[in-house]
């Protein structure tokens, strides 16, 4: 049975989603335990897969028993195995967290919510483990459709935000599909590795249409990941979505798209082509510098807690795109490591924002007032997440920034290094503002006199929300402290692609 582990990562949430759609309406209580069981299975399967990849090298799983390029294959190396684990673990943590919020926010649509939730997880995992460029598009459709549905189930303003997201997302997916179509015209193949072999063997790398395919795929993926000038759908969609939805989407969707970009650049087109023949690194790095700075500055201007975090995601996307395009080994390692660490940091702060909203019903940053007294554990976890986003050791955010900065120095892109440091400073301002409000209150000068009169009671969030948050905070520390094995897996992958 162990040789089926790649399939189980995807099939566990997929079958459970359909099952919930069938029976969840009549038996509402069954949804939540089923979600947890299926996601736990999925986590186990993905961990098994990673260990198998470490033992046996790249895994190939032929769907339908047809060898590629005739059939579709799952092709799993160190990179996808890691990203698959990140997806399943984040989904499991958010799944535990979802219990109360789903009942509170969408009480009569629990089964639809969880069906879409699990299908989204299946879609994201499928995108990551597949080795077929067109199959990636099909699963991209699944994950986009489910995320539109999940966001639109939020309060009133979510509908308009979703509409914007649908338009932008569809354009992005179409661009990707056009690119794959151009590649098919030139190579007659859809398998990623086979496309690369055909491009090299038939000497097609100089052709204009392959370049257009590259541009189309890259821009399509950029739209989907909200890279700076194409980001406008993201902040409102994530800010107005139901709590659980945004805690699942914010850590995963943009990161999976960055994975897709890396896969396309390194596996389909190859290092030679993307970095040496095209040589667009300078332009893209300047774009990512603008993305980082504008994301951080726009985050400063927000008063809505979740919207502020959403703008931080845009800055983080800039980190990763820049890191990838540095065309440097440590830059690439940093970018891939940042996919993992950023997924958990974003999860941590979004879980915190969800708890604040659940407790106070207020979206504003000032809602955290007095939280240190009321919810010390929640605040501790938040501080870990915030430190990680700022980049303070020993949290994992420090190490990914370290590699990114090293990559910037190695390749001589000082503008990227400066942007990273500036953005860390802005993050520090942002998060210390929140910590200050939580500790001293929104208006410390006024509130001082009343300080002793009303001592707020300690009231943590319920365990089903608190425990996931604490787990995430612990994971942030663990990934940071034990970064060595993870970095080694990533380094093996990066070295194998031939990047120096």
């Amino acid at each position, binding site marked *: 049975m162990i040789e089926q582990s790649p399939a189980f990562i995807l*099939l566990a949430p997929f079958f459970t989603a359909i099952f919930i759609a069938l029976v969840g309406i009549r038996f509402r209580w069954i949804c939540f335990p089923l979600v947890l069981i299926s996601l736990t299975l999925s986590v186990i399967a993905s961990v098994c897969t990673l260990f198998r990849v470490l033992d046996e090298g790249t895994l190939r799983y032929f769907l339908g028993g047809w060898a590629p390029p005739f059939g579709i294959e799952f092709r799993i190396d160190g990179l996808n195995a890691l990203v698959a684990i990140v997806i399943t673990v984040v989904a499991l943590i958010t799944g535990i967290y979802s219990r109360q919020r789903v009942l509170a926010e969408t009480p009569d649509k629990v089964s639809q919510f969880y069906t879409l939730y699990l299908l989204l997880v299946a879609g994201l995992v499928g995108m990551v483990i597949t080795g077929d460029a067109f199959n990636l598009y099909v699963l991209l459709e699944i994950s986009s459709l489910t995320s539109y549905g999940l966001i639109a189930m939020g309060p009133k303003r979510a509908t308009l935000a979703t509409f914007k997201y649908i338009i932008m997302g569809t354009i992005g997916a179409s661009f990707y599909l056009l690119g794959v179509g151009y590649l098919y015209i030139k190579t007659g193949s859809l398998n990623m590795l086979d496309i690369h072999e055909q491009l090299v063997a038939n000497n097609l790398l100089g052709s204009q249409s392959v370049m257009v395919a590259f541009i189309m795929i890259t821009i399509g993926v950029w739209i989907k990941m909200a890279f700076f000038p194409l980001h406008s759908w993201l902040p409102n969609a994530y800010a107005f979505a139901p709590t659980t939805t945004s805690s699942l989407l914010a850590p995963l969707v943009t990161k999976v798209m960055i994975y897709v970009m890396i896969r396309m650049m390194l596996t389909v087109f190859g290092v030679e082509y993307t970095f040496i023949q095209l040589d667009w690194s300078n332009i893209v790095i300047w774009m990512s510098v603008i993305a980082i700075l504008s994301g951080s500055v726009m985050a400063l201007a927000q008063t809505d807690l979740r919207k502020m975090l959403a703008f931080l995601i845009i800055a983080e996307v800039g980190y990763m795109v820049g890191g990838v395009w540095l065309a440097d080994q440590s830059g690439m390692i940093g970018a891939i490591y940042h996919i993992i660490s950023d997924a958990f940091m974003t999860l941590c702060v979004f879980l915190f924002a969800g708890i604040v909203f659940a407790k106070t019903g207020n979206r504003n940053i000032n809602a955290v007032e007095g939280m240190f007294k009321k919810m010390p554990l929640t605040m501790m976890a938040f501080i870990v997440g915030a430190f990680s986003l700022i980049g303070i050791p020993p949290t994992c955010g420090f190490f990914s920034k370290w590699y990114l900065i090293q990559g910037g120095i190695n390749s001589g892109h000082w503008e990227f290094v400066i942007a990273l440091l500036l953005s860390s400073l802005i993050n520090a301002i942002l998060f210390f503002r929140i910590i200050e409000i939580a500790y001293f209150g929104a208006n410390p000068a006024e509130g001082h006199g009343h300080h002793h009169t009303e001592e707020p009671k300690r009231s943590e969030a319920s365990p089903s929300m608190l425990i996931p948050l604490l787990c995430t905070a612990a994971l942030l520390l663990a990934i940071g402290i034990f970064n060595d094995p993870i970095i080694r897996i990533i380094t093996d992958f990066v070295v194998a692609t031939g990047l120096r």
Partner: protein
Amino acid sequence: MKIIGFIAVCITGWLLLSAINDFPDFGDPHSPANGYRLSQYYITDTFTDTSVPNMVTAVLADYRGYDTLFETVVIFTAGIAIIGILRRYGSSDKSVGRSKAFIEEPRKDLLIHTTCRLLIPIIQLFALYVIAHGHHSPGGGFQGGAIFGASFILLALAHNLKTAEKRMPERRILTLAGVGIFIYAGFGLACLILGNNFLDYSILHKLLPITPIEARSHSMLGVEIGVAFTVTAIMFSIYSNLVSSSRMKEGL
């Protein structure tokens, strides 16, 4: 904004057109997409591999059956998402404005009713033919399902939503849609349980007295039926949700 959009469209169009010089000639039998081993393989080997004469179906439901499974899931997801977003439970009497006519008022038009009575069985029979013959001639689950779903929509248009919902209540829609996916994915799971990879139908010959190659052909018919279930149900579900402002009379 309009000017920015116009410029973006122009640049994209120019980019797409600029690659055309590079393309193989239109209809060139030696172009990579036509002459390369992939298409050649499908053309020459499909029948010996799967015993299905219609190679489009073989590519769709077997070689790339995993894609098609998820294309079906796309339709299913769309249906569930529309129910999730639009459906409003309870207080079904408050259906407003124009939609009221679609749901309740019975229309007494002899001509329309008689035509429907004649047409609907034929449409449904034809749909079944398209589904059942998908792996031999053009057709299949998506097309057949769409035709079948259209027959219910015709019923709802000619009478009212209530009449159509008597034949196809909301709960049955959801069950049908889920069962459709289960049929498709169940074929895959059965292969996996019997020891092959997911969706490798050839091992199903153990369950029936047929050869592995025939097992592929029969399984393709099976998955087409699954697709048809889902497409039929979701077609009608989307129609009834949109037309009744999501307050279906015959609720859950």
